[in-house]
């Protein structure tokens, strides 16, 4: 088994080096906690990080030179960077940030990139408003919303890189994150693409662990959310291929409260 494509955690003799772009955002701290016992982490963010036991480098994901420089010596890249409301920065980070991550991966011989985005990176209104059992392998139709389209452009850039270079991209799609003990809207239903922070972070462990040779192609997308009965979207692929299973189904939201 080629070293570069072997499950990251199975390379004996050394911890593997994982670059995290956007490590100081909402999801970052949870991902760090999930990965830090198994991997050596290099954290980056455009914002300062107050304190961390891990190596930290201030990096703007929209800056090609910075991303290429900070990726040196890494075995995998996890791209958590995101910016939603500002048009210039959204294109810089969500779209060009993916180009930068992929260019850095190719330059440094990194074969595994984990990208992230909201579900409408792929399944925009033309799916979401109309359909059920929406899986992640549909042709992307993000719509023209700024956040959605910039993320979708980033994903398309990733896909083009995988068609032209020896690099794999595993894209994890999320939408709503919840604390496990969130009872803010019991029995009121919720967005059918919700997951606890802990379960979301666990998906990254699986994405780093999987043997790349087992993936159907060099560009694979996975829907990550709790097991819920809505059947609006499908997370079956993440379970089947990554072996990821949500541990908390957030039942308090989608089951009516019993009286008494």
């Amino acid at each position: 088994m080629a070293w570069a494509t072997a499950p990251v955690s199975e390379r004996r003799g050394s911890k593997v080096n994982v670059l995290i772009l956007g490590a100081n955002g909402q999801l970052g701290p949870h991902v760090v906690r999930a990965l830090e016992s198994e991997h050596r982490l290099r954290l980056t963010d455009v914002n300062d990080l107050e304190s961390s036991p891990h190596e930290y480098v201030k990096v703007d994901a929209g800056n090609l030179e910075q991303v290429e420089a900070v990726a040196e010596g890494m075995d995998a890249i996890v791209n958590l960077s995101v910016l939603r409301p500002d048009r210039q920065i959204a294109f810089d980070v969500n779209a060009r940030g993916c180009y930068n991550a992929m260019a850095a991966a190719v330059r440094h011989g990194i074969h595994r990139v984990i990208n992230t985005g909201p579900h409408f990176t792929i399944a925009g209104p033309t799916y979401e408003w109309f359909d059920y059992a929406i899986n992640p392998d549909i042709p992307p139709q993000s719509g023209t919303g700024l956040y959605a389209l910039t993320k979708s452009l980033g994903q398309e850039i990733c896909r083009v890189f995988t068609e032209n270079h020896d690099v794999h991209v595993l894209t994890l799609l999320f939408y709503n994150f919840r604390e496990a003990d969130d009872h803010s809207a019991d029995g009121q239903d919720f967005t059918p693409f919700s997951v606890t922070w802990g379960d979301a972070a666990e998906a990254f462990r699986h994405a780093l662990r999987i043997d790349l040779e087992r993936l159907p192609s060099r560009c694979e997308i996975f829907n990550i959310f709790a097991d819920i009965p809505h059947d609006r979207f499908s997370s079956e692929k993440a379970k089947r291929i990554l072996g990821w299973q949500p541990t908390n189904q957030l039942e308090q939201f989608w089951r009516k409260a019993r009286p008494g």
Partner: protein
Amino acid sequence: MKVLITNGGSPLSQELASALGDGHEVTLTAREQVQTSAKFVQSDLGHDQTTNALVKGVDAIVHSGDTDPKASVSNRLDVAMRCTYNLLWAAVEERVPRVIFLSSLGLLDGYDEDLAVTERWRPVPPTDPALLSFHLGEYVCREFARERRISVTCLRLGTLIWDSNSGGAISSQALYPDDATQAVERAMSAEVPSGTWTTAARTWNVFHIQSSVPDARYLTSAAQDGLGYSPSQRA
């Protein structure tokens, strides 16, 4: 028609402005100041009212997906994606009915030359920023067209031949400027039929445009049928 042509400093845009200027009211625009006899408005194609003002009252926008080869990779991608987005967003707000996006047949060069590649084939872009930019520009345009917010005709152009006397072999996907101009002018006014199985108007139409040269690589029958494109026969 009132026509806005972007990338005003490029030879193609200037050729289009010159050729279309006789029958249409043409405005050229570019991010930098350009020497031209056509009406010119400098614009960064930013997300502000200046872009709205640029497109207001225009009947058709001819938007070139070409990017400055001297610019950085980051800048080329930024122009291809963000400026195209800003332009189409403003065009929708100002109710511009039609955009003609000038893309590249280079997006299909990944297929073998002996394949009968048409508009039905999936583009296979490389990661080279020059061609990737066209692909990403198409991606942006397609989403606006998919939401039915504007009609977009995408012309994938062959290799432009500016000096027909330069000698050497002619590219199998050569495109002479007069054929390019004809294709754009046809796209400005063509009403492309939806097809047999639906009456819904098609807001996204792709046509492959090259000249009729020996051993022409790409089939242009769709453009001939859909736009009335009639390239001159070249020896």
